């Protein structure tokens, strides 16, 4: 029995090695020649060496498709429409494709091999996504777990982002994290200065990226990022805004408020910022200053735990509690909601807003966040 198991184990090890070799051989030794990828009916055409993943080919040519798994086929974010030349849909793709997407030839670009000419369609905003080199200008610990990283963009020197959008930070390998990884972080700075970008990064237990940011990254370091990504941004209406943030979810909301201040907006907006204790609050001075600059804006911090002996005359409880009281009185009709923060808060708040009559298309947050 033991011999059979050892034999099988040896054989399986060999098969794994062979599979890896075949994959490498396919790319290096099978010559697919040059392939042409036509994007959005010829709006852009790329000629490149064929054989690799469509996702990588596009990135090598300056077109960055969102991805949260580094091309392993497990996040479902890298969707593009492949109008011709993509071959059969793979079983690894089908779990991520809705019936409508399957019908309109949506594919996971990390699963499509560029082995012949392709015609694809991507949202036009993807053309605006660029890879940047940047230098860390300053690092500031805002709370015990939140760190602000301010970066000067070196090449290209400006980013055209909509407040609310995010960047992907490329974290290089370091001890304990042997491969580079890339992670999404919302832009906290306002649109007035396009040559710098600030992020607020919360430490996560055993986190590959956040450990690097909190323990290794130093002022003056050169880093790489790409962006801007995402559909979370201010809608151009006069609707009253209810903004809800927890933790580093405050970052994109602050960026939107700075945009409103720049535009001298008179829009009615209330920000509910939920934290556990006063020690977890940050950017308070900036938000109070924004109350002065934005006549329709009110900042409401909400603490879930007020330690004994501490005086706090503000709101307490879940961040959704005071919002619920407001909606109880006024109803939700005609209002817009902007949310960013922990996924439980988002789920609970979306449910609450819909119960009070704010329709789903007026509730904005980063899906997959």
């Amino acid at each position: 029995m033991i011999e059979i198991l050892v034999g099988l184990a040896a054989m399986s090890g060999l098969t794994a090695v062979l599979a890896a070799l075949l994959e490498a051989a396919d790319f290096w030794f099978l010559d697919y020649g040059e392939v042409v990828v036509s994007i959005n009916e010829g709006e852009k055409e790329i000629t490149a060496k064929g054989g690799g993943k469509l996702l990588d080919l596009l990135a090598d040519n300056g077109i960055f498709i969102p991805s949260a798994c580094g091309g392993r086929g497990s996040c479902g974010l890298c969707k593009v429409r492949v109008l011709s030349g993509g071959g059969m849909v793979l079983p690894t793709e089908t779990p991520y494709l809705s019936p409508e997407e399957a019908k309109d030839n949506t594919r996971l670009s990390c699963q499509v091999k560029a082995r012949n000419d392709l015609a694809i369609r991507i949202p036009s905003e993807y053309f605006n996504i660029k890879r940047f080199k940047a230098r860390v200008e300053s690092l500031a610990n805002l709370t015990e777990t939140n760190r602000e990283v301010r970066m000067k963009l070196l090449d290209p020197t400006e980013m055209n982002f909509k407040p609310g959008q995010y960047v992907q930070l490329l974290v290089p390998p370091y001890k304990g994290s042997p491969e580079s990884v890339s992670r999404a972080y919302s832009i906290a700075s306002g649109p007035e200065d396009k040559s710098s970008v600030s992020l607020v990064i919360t430490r996560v237990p055993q986190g590959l990226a956040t450990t690097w940011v909190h323990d290794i990254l130093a002022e003056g370091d050169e880093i790489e990022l790409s962006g801007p990504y995402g559909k979370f941004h201010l809608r151009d209406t006069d609707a009253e805004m209810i903004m809800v943030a927890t933790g580093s979810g405050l970052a994109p909301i602050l960026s939107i408020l700075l945009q409103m201040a720049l535009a001298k907006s008179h829009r009615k907006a209330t920000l509910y910022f939920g934290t556990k204790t006063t020690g977890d609050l940050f950017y308070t001075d900036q938000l109070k200053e924004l109350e002065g600059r934005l006549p329709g804006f009110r900042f409401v911090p909400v603490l879930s735990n007020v330690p004994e002996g501490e005086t706090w005359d503000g709101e307490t409880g879940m961040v959704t509690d005071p919002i619920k009281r407001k909606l109880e009185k006024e109803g939700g009709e005609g209002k817009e909601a902007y949310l960013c923060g922990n996924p439980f808060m988002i789920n609970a708040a979306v449910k609450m807003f819909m119960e009070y009559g704010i329709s789903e298309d007026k509730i904005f947050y980063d899906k997959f966040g």
Partner: protein
Amino acid sequence: MTRFPLFQSPALDAAELAMRPTADFRHGYLGNDPRKLVEILQADLARVKALGLTHEDLAGRLARITVEATSTGMGNAVVVDGAWEVSVTAARGVLPCPFGHPGVFPKTEVRARNLKTGKEIIWTDLSVHMIHAHGFYQGQGSPYRLDPGELAVFLGLAPG
């Protein structure tokens, strides 16, 4: 695919490589456990069977506590079933399962304290999935290792 493995298949080789790219990989998974992945899976399966339980029993209880705590606590500590004090924190973002099939899991961290014994354990959504789908409780020294015997006692599924 690997809940009752007989030998170290190519799929397990690939999973082991993803879990142990270096000895000090921050995510742990195999920790400093010198055993092959298949040996860890087989040893833990035997322990679960000896307790008269299944992987589903343990994962199911962990999942139920997680759901209770997230729906009522929204990140704050809550008492579940009068037996455990549980707080769940969640970073935005998702991560893939190292066994390499489709699907991603939220970056949650659940801390639960057994109110009777005072013992505290930590798990994540991915931990629950890996127990349920792969019978994987992680290697010795992983920050997220859940010893099946201790886990069963903690969850009230086996006598202490």
